[in-house]
């Protein structure tokens, strides 16, 4: 199997593609820190998927007699919050919200950015000027302030928070994609495909995108930490997920009132945010090595 995958002369397109993926995996596997990041994220996905089964308690069940119990209380491994809800269970259910936000933002922001950036870069002229000025307008506002304005206009709630974060996150991707497109546009291999009669849509999607994509993916994974924090920030301000739904940012916000006497209520979700952010950063670093076209499948 291994020999088949790493074959010097693959017999079919499928074998070549699988072989390339496998070679990329081998490079990635060599990077211990990136593997740690991947493991944490895999655990997060598992947690979210299996939340109903692995969560020891109902995340919404209140028990005022058991409020603000410290870490290690029997039955409440990570303690309870001000309404006596089990923090561990809320954390596990909260991973669903976190994943939801991360996935949606990761789908919207880079795609919008890539589209705007490459079109502006490749078309040039008026298109470039108009699209880039719009980008500049978005960039001129502090991110959280802009997101706040959007949420205020759209109404509080998790979907609107995602939308607001995505809308504020795309301009840097657009700038990056445009800069790359400008250097790619004049290269000989683009000239060559133009001489084959390829149109602009094909050139942008088939030839420019693949080259922008690797740096974009790396950038997105590195930005993921910021996105989680922005979502938590909105939750903390009461503009993201609404109580009683378990969201990590909102949990910190609730714990704030007790932070001096009952530190774990705010600290535990904080640590969860920290761990996931770190995992994304590690993953991003590892991906950068794998996605470099020169190291991708050179074995």
């Amino acid at each position, binding site marked *: 199997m291994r020999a088949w995958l790493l074959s010097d002369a693959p017999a079919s397109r499928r074998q070549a593609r699988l072989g390339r993926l496998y070679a990329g995996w081998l490079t990635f596997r060599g990077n211990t820190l990136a593997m740690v990041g991947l493991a944490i994220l895999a655990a997060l996905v598992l947690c979210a998927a299996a939340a109903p089964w692995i969560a020891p308690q109902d995340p919404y069940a209140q028990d005022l007699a058991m409020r603000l119990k410290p870490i290690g209380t029997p039955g409440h491994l990570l303690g309870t919050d001000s309404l006596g809800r089990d923090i561990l269970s809320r954390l596990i259910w909260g991973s669903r919200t976190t994943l939801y936000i991360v996935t949606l933002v990761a789908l919207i922001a880079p795609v919008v950015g890539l589209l705007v950036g490459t079109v502006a870069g490749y078309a040039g002229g008026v298109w470039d000027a108009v699209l880039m000025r719009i980008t500049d307008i978005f960039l001129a506002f502090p991110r959280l302030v802009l997101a706040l304005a959007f949420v205020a206009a759209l109404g509080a709630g998790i979907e609107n928070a995602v939308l607001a974060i995505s809308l504020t996150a795309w301009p840097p991707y657009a700038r990056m994609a445009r800069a790359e497109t400008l250097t790619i546009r004049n290269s000989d291999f683009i000239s060559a495909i133009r001489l084959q*009669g390829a149109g602009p849509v094909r050139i942008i999607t088939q030839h420019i995108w693949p080259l922008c994509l690797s740096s974009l993916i790396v950038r997105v994974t590195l930005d993921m930490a910021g996105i989680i924090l922005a979502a938590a920030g909105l939750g903390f301000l009461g503009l993201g997920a609404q109580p009683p739904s378990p969201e990590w940012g909102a949990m910190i916000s609730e714990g704030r009132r007790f932070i001096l006497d009952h530190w774990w209520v705010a600290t535990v979700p904080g640590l969860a945010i920290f761990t996931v952010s770190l995992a994304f950063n590690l993953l991003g670093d590892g991906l950068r090595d794998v996605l470099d076209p020169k190291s991708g*499948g050179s074995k």
Partner: protein
Amino acid sequence: MLEVDGMNVWFGAGATHVDAVQGASFFVGRGESFGLVGESGSGKSTILRAITGLAPGWSGRVEVDGKPVYRDRRDRAFHKRVQMVFQDPYASLHPRHSVDRVLSETLRLHGMDAIDRRVPQLLEDVGLGPKFRFRYPHQLSGGQRQRVAIARALAGEPELLLLDEPTSALDVSVQAEILNLLADLRGERGLTYVMVSHDLAVVGHLCQRLAVMQSGRIVEMLDVEQLRRGRAEHPYSRALIAASVSGGRTARAAE
């Protein structure tokens, strides 16, 4: 096959306006191999780029096979008939596309069928085995890349091939291989070549006629016999020939 009459090419506009080519006219017959010779900045590559539409600012009359070429519109038939090989094989292949993808996409763009059969055939035509099919450019040497670039240019079965210094980035022994390949392909397929080079010996090897260019103008037309005998009229052509022949001194003594 190719007729260029009174071609001017310029870059930029207003204060940055630069005339790259001024009043270039030449004619290349079907099956002929024609050379454009000059030093960097003489505008020789620019002529090729203008013909193919990569340099948009030009005027004059260009006809391919009797059909006029317009400034900003080139149809499928033009791209099928006229193809180009670039100077630097490290820059002319998409770094993330495998050889297979480069060739099959090109074939598809030209509306070819039986792509799975044609790709290995193209590779064989340029002297690469089937094991190169799924390689990526960084896994190939300079000469192998240039062979892939030639295969790509041949995919649409063109009649006119524009060669922009196809061997200047390669070692001499690899240059010999590529020049032989180009000569063979022309013989097999009855191709017409227009080759740009700064190397008179290379042009003299592959071409029957050539134009010498200096700062955007064609200063002299020579055929290969005149070139070999050193019978050039223009002082610039003479200087170029002198530089190439003194280089060949040792080689000549080798006989």
